[in-house]
């Protein structure tokens, strides 16, 4: 009589053998064209998305220029003793009161 282990070992060996005998899957007609179509679509999409001024080198150059400009403005404000916040508030409030006056027909 065969032991249970031998039987399960045989089942395992049978499954391994079955794996090796797996059916071949031929390349079906039309499959190659489908892959090439997908590749061409991807290329077209990539070309459309590739806007020159948004490409990484331009983006980094733009970021660097912006940082440089911010540094220059800050340095100027510190040297000339300007308080940027108060200047801005005056500008905004000045414009705002002018608009209100115009709406009310005072000027």
């Amino acid at each position, binding site marked *: 009589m065969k032991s249970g282990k031998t039987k399960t070992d045989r*089942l*395992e060996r049978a499954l*391994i053998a079955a*794996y090796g*005998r*797996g059916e071949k899957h031929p*390349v079906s007609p039309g499959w190659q064209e489908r*892959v090439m179509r997908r*590749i061409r679509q*991807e290329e077209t999409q990539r070309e459309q998305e590739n806007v020159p001024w948004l490409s990484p080198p331009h983006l980094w150059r733009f970021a660097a220029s912006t940082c440089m400009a911010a540094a220059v403005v800050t340095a100027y404000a510190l040297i000339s003793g300007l308080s940027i916040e108060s200047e801005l508030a005056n500008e905004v409030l000045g414009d705002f009161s002018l608009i209100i006056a115009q709406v009310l027909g005072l000027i």
Partner: protein
Amino acid sequence: MEMMPEEPTDTEIIRRVLSGDKDAFEFLLERYGSLVFGIVARHVPRGQVEDVAQEVFFRAYRSLAAFAGQGLFNHWLSKIAVRCCHDYWRGSRSQEMPASTLTDEHRAWVDRIMAVESQETFEQETERREAQEVLHYVLSLLPAEDRMVLALVHLEGRPTGEAADMLGWSVVKVKVKAHRARRKLKELIKKLADHR
């Protein structure tokens, strides 16, 4: 005698594709389609082979610049194929076959294989459709990583170093995973034998 035009090498084709001639990629599809189908068909269900094979070539196309002629193209492509199969199983755990899909025919096959006496009958039985279906059933019960490592190391008999290279894992991880996966397979087979 008419001279046959010489076939372009893989390196030449890749150079052409990278320089903008995307149609040249079709040479690679022609040359390696069977290789990729052969790998993919062993790992994913029959109905999914074409889609996964398409994904393999699509990924290869997108990362062609990274290949840069280092090593053999077919080896590089085989690795992509194995990883696409792995990704397929990672993304489709919810679609796995439920345990109740073993039919009476499958159970009868399990009975026959366990009672078989001669080598000849054993081999005849392993050629039957039921053998493939029971195998797919058992593998479907394993997690994606276990399934892939089991297939490469245990079922295909690849060395652990090669399996590690194909899966992009360390050799230690492959050894540990292969050992655990084999143990799980044995448990599943034992259950199958006991509850048939």
